[in-house]
């Protein structure tokens, strides 16, 4: 077992993990942050996306020990402390950008990362950026709309 410490959604966390523990497993099983999902085992679907030190990361593709000392933000950290949805989250609701909700946390984390690096993306740029996130429900149409709307709201 290895001891690791990190900040998750603004709170300091210290825990012992097996060296082979994936970051997503650590978040879900040890911290109980089950909003981050696992949809595949080949780093394709993006349901497990989180931010590690401000960078978009597939938490199924890194070990928990690799996040030692890092600042991790998950979907649970995206709303305001009083529960008010963040701009991207609100845009997803306003534009029906989710159905079953399973890919949604990863989509929101990706969309937020995109808007950070490109505050005014075109539809084509949004579609290209989201190619690492699979959704089987929405056909992406309303997700793209939601991301565009979030960009405009952040203006």
């Amino acid at each position: 077992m290895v001891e690791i410490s990190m900040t998750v959604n603004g709170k300091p966390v210290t825990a012992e993990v097996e060296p082979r523990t994936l970051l997503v497993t650590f978040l879900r099983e040890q911290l109980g942050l089950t909003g981050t999902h696992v949809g595949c085992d080949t780093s394709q679907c993006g349901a497990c996306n989180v931010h590690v030190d401000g960078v978009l990361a597939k938490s199924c593709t890194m070990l928990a020990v690799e996040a030692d000392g890092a600042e991790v933000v998950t979907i649970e950290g995206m709303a305001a402390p009083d529960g008010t949805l963040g701009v991207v989250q609100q845009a997803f609701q306003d534009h029906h950008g989710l159905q079953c909700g399973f890919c949604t946390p990863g989509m929101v984390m990706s969309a937020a990362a995109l808007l950070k690096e490109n505050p005014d993306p075109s539809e084509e740029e949004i579609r290209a950026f989201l190619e690492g996130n699979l959704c089987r429900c929405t056909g992406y149409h309303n997700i793209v709309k939601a991301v565009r709307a979030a960009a405009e709201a952040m203006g």
Partner: protein
Amino acid sequence: MPKDHGIGAPIRRREDLRFLTGSGRYTDDINLPGQAYVRFLRSDVAHGRIKRLDTSAAAAMDGVIRVFTARDFENVGGLPCGWQITSRDGNPMAEPKHPIMAEGKVRHVGEIIAAVIAETPGQAQDAVEAIEVEIEELPAVIDMAAALEEGAPKVHDDLPSNLCFDWGLVEENREKVDEAIRNAPHVVSLELVNQRLAPNAMEPRVAIGAYDKATDEHTLYTTSQNPHVIRLLMGAFVLGIPEHKLRVVAPDVGGGFGSKIFHYAEEAFCTYAAKVVGRPVKWTSSRSEAFMSDAQGRDHVTKIELALDEEGHFLALRTHTLANMGAYLSTFAPAVPTWLHGTLMAGTYRTPLIYVNVKAVFTNTVPVDAYRGAGRPEATFQLERVIDKAARELGMDPVEIRRKNFINPDQFPYETPVALVYDTGNYHATLEKLEELADFGGFEARRQESAARGRLRGLGVNCYIEACGIAPSNLVGQLGARAGLYDSATVRVNPTGSITVHTGVHSHGQSHETTFPQVIAEMIGIPEDQIEIVHGDTANSPMGMGTYGSRSIAVGGSAMVRATEKIIAKAKKIAAHLLEASEGDIELKDGKFTVKGTDREVAWADVTLAAYVPHNYPLDELEPGLEETSFYDPANFTFPSGAYACEVEVDPETGKVEVCSFVAVDDFGNVINPMVVDGQVHGGLAQGIGQALLEQCVYDENGQLVTASYMDYAMPRADDLPSFTVDHSCQTPCTHNPLGVKGCGEAGAIGSPPTIVNAVIDALQRGGIRVDHIDMPLTPARVWSAIRAAS
């Protein structure tokens, strides 16, 4: 101005709040105290005899609680099939046992051979890898035609052949159809493959079994579209657990698309093993496991022949289809290529004579069952492809040949030659709307613009129909269903007037928690936020058949309406008492009961409170309380229909297809929440376009599943798809359910594949490349090869 309340309002979804904040509760988010973990040893060969299975080393490993093999399930039933098909010769279909674990022989890659339960998932996996298994590999049958040849290796040794059934619709018409085709001036034929697909709900399946020794009660948490069906099948037919001792919970479920209808071995295993080991047992599928254990979809090979007269009127239609069942019969597999496929071969047209033959075949592949559309996409694809080819051969416009053969609006109810009665529709109206939205008039200019860039542009159309809202129980019983297909709702009015609806259908993306309250809000006149929808737990919802076949609102919603009508009738009696008026004079509007023609009124919540605090109450005539249940069994299927068009560009140098635009005009009857309906169509379109251009399960000749991960199975991504134009303003309300609704979940997946393929063939033909057909998926390699072969 759109409505902001009630039926027809595009109100935002309440379920989004939990999904957007990571607070959803999917099955894998549940962990029970003392839980152990199971991992399965699955066959890595498609067909073979298990010569030796030694689990002793695995059993001795750290953390291992117990190892299971088929021997542990000798007193347990096989997984049942819920639909029996009768062959043309009157014999029932071949129905081999579908064991929980392979008994002596493995019949597809991924079949379970053994299971290890351990303290952690890692320990269970380590131990699975220590199981020694020796399998004598046998020749595998993969190709359906080869599987039916004399002397082919048999998937099931105790059956006479690999034929499951040989079915005809309508057998009495066969000779008449043959004769009409023989004598017709034009016969257009096509041979086509509707390839095998993996449903790929983003949430992999999960099952957690638990057993309470004190009460002798079993609980199964599972990723299911229909928990009651799982309780019935697993309790009564597999494990012999009486239903009052078995609870099945399907909490938030991350998409289904059919694949989570069926009862799977892992569910029965976890339920059974939890009692044996005395601890909850959890299984979480990996995506790789999902590819080889979730039922797959489609997989038909068809020859279709359409006979026409000189003017292009359809005279007769004949199809011969081979339908792959895989190695075992999944829960509803036999219904898909038969009653959900053959019955749709009339389409939206007046073809007077139709004969459909389907031979279902066992192969050494993962079982096949319903996947979004289930049978109807296969029917639509054949019909709409052959019509396009007929238009080309007869020199007619593909839109006009369709219009010429449409069932006209004054012909409803319309009885087809393949056993359905369409209650209503207006196919001309949807096609006209399509012509307007898709700007057919501007196509030629766009084509020239594409040509200037070296691209071939094509326009494809399709007019589909589907049978949804399944289904009348007495009818499906005659057709072989071993279940009823009603649904249910309990409407429980709480003392202060809020309402909890317990429904037998299940939402796994369909938005019931938002849309169902809109219906009751409309009926009673109270705000939606006073109404809660409860689903997904056999312990707190009435027996219902669940969600598939676009049936939730048409059947489950109708049950809710009926129960609410009973509530309103009783509440009016109470109101009449409180207002000292005659019951017949009471009206309910905007959450108030009034006496007709007076200003006397009593609020909804005062009436509901009186029902539970019956101090001033007609107790001699009326029971206290306000709670009603209805079971609704539909009188007929519903028949959504529509007209789709798309434009594609083909790069003749690479064969790459780009979808430039897609317009879907659907007639869903009345619409409860247009925003949700748009979303359902978008998702269906993406799956259908995925089928047309990208997706395919590929088995090699040995039965190895080559496409068992997202590295190899091409899922549609955001940058593969265009934005869609969808419209559902053409509405012919269903005539036989109280809401006039038809269902919208599958339309997009049914209507889009032939639209895309028609557009690609159109692009090639307009470019002077004589290609009649390319099998899906239309990958660059296939399109490029077809172009090369033709030139």
